[in-house]
């Protein structure tokens, strides 16, 4: 745990720096044809894709091949998150359609909510800030859900994916300890 503490602290500090995680819009629908500045890819770095503002995003080829992070996000989401938020981010009887939250929420608010959790009466999301299985893959989960919210990937397991880059492997190993 000690080795992986640093990225978590960094994440927590980042979260604190961004005020006002809002509550209400998580189940609001998404119109994929509308303009979403947090979606288009501006540049690639070591197998990771970013928007113009440096927000992680997904990259999906015309033949359906997804970038590694989107695929990895699918896996991690369905281990850590789907027991509340449902398969493919579709929501459950007691937690919102998080695929829409990933589009509607600001990246930093999304991040902060995962790190800190959230209380809204008897609707409670736990804090995942100390869970390496979530924190080491938070960008993965975020870009996967954003792709789901935008209908850029279908439900179920993406069938074609980019290989995992060496840089992503190194970061994963450092983070998981």
């Amino acid at each position, binding site marked *: 745990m000690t080795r992986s503490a640093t990225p978590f602290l960094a994440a927590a500090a980042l979260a604190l720096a961004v005020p006002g995680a809002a509550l209400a819009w998580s189940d609001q629908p998404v119109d994929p044809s509308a303009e979403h500045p947090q979606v288009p890819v501006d540049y690639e770095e070591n197998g990771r894709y970013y928007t113009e503002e440096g927000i992680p995003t997904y990259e999906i080829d015309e033949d359906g091949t997804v970038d590694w992070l989107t695929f990895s996000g699918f896996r991690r989401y369905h281990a850590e998150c789907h027991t509340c938020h449902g398969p493919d981010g579709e929501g459950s*009887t007691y937690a919102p359609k998080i695929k829409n939250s990933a589009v509607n929420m600001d990246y930093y608010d999304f991040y902060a909510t995962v790190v800190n959790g959230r209380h809204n009466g008897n609707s409670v999301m736990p804090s995942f800030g100390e869970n390496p299985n979530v924190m080491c893959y938070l960008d993965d989960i975020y870009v996967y859900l954003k792709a789901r919210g935008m209908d850029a990937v279908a439900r179920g397991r993406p069938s074609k994916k980019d290989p995992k880059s060496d840089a992503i492997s190194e970061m994963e190993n450092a983070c998981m300890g």
Partner: protein
Amino acid sequence: MKKLTLLTSGLALTASMAVANEDLMSQMDDPNQWAIQTGDYKNQRYSELDQINAENVGDMQVAWTFSTGVLRGHEGSPLVVGDTMYLHTPFPNIVYALDLANEGRIKWKYEPQQDPDVIPVMCCDTVNRGVAYADGKIFLHQADTKVVALNAEDGSVAWEATNGDPSKGETNTATVLPVKDKVIVGISGGEFGVQGHVTAYNMETGEQEWRAYSVGPDDQILFNPEETTSLGEPVGADSSLNTWEGDQWMIGGGTTWGWYAADMDENLFYYGSGNPSTWNPAQRPGDNRWSMTIFARDIDTGEAKWVYQMTPHDEWDYDGVNEMILTEQEIDGEERKLLTHFDRNGLAYTMDRVSGELLVAEKYDPVVNWTTGVDMDPESDTYGRPEVVAQYSTEQNGEDVNTTGVCPAALGTKDQQPAAYSPKTETFYVPTNHVCMDYEPFRVAYTAGQPYVGATLSMYPAPDSHGGMGNFIAWDNINGEIKWSIPEQFSVWSGALATAGDVVFYGTLEGYLKAVDAESGDELYRFKTPSGIIGNVMTYMHDDKQYVGILSGIGGWAGIGLAAGLTNPNDGLGAVGGYAALSDYTALGGQLTVFSLPDSASSSSSSEN
């Protein structure tokens, strides 16, 4: 002389224990009441009442309803003891006492104070499977693992005990077993690396009397290496420790959140343990005993008399917690005391409940494919073990490999939703899931109080079948055969009830209460309640009138996957979304619906509607 004293004091002890429990025993024997969640200690969920029967059930009407005020998954059922109905809710675990002699007026209401932080630690919704009654007390096992004894008359707290630590992922969803002078309770948290245990509290005082873990050293699991047997042989020393690497057993799972049974003549109680943690089998080499195990333990001491591990080294999350149903039946010309168990792994086991001998192990859904069956040859080295099909072995396929088409899915051919048994037809009535999955294990790290899962899975209706996600089946436990099977669009997540009126009741996720003929399975009645049903059907008699009660309130595991509908990733794009979403049929709710016959129809028959 000394021996004699011991003997007499032993006798005296037994006598006083019998008295302490006589109250519940007599209430359970009275078919006019529903004094325990499971119908009786045998878990048969069978009622001798026959005013509502196969002839007239078609005339059944709603007699009265009650809103619980809570909108999440409602499992379990109310109890009826005397003139009072005791009704629970999911978190925040409110208990209502309703006065049946006064049109259901609320006699008292108890609402515990619980930290809402326990909510997200509960995998799969905040369900609770109901209160228990004994000795003038109502026992509530809250989500945060606090066990509370309430005075049945006024709802005042008699005692409280804390059974676990939610900050480590220990929570509770199950009811408790009141037996003799004890209240026996389990624990949830298999997805959080909990070391599962079962614990007895003194019924009078709430003091802890013993605790038996599912995994760990002999003195923690309360095994006697020479006396405790598995398939007829003593288990020997360190039978659990030998099957784990290092100290992995400390976060090894084996939680105990199912329905418990008891045999007072044998002085044994029966239950099953859940999955080993994590879901990634490569991370925990060995058989991982005694996860996925049927236990027979001594009521007084907790010591294990016999055990049987159904799924050694689980690779699919096939928890072994489902109920043990106790029956006396003839098998090969001999009357035997049996235990029948419908496991998540898709096999139905019939065992001798005194000796722990395995008599029958057969698939109760033909689509089950991860195993070719159990080795039934006592001379074999692999006696009692299931033969695993390599294609569906997530262990053999390895980490980071997606194993596809495994049946059943992780929610099992049946989850906790309890079956019923009719001694009249010698048939088991079993609510089942008809769902398969893809399962990909990968490496995870353990953090206390955080999910410890380590696999991703996709579930979908069983391919090449009727397209639905459930069946309601009639099962012959002697021959290991399905007698009939009713296809259902969604998993049947409701506990069944069989009655002497030759009717079997169950609920569906769309919200129907259904009554079927106990012999033929023909549908005799259906009524759509306000929300999907994951509760258990119960019945009672009041003022010479038979009533049937059911809780509605969609949620639980069924509320996760089925709410949005399941897709089969192996289908072409055209089929995706072709499967119905439960949200097209029902919405959240929390209501008790109670049925009876109209006054004129009690003796007439109906075949016209």
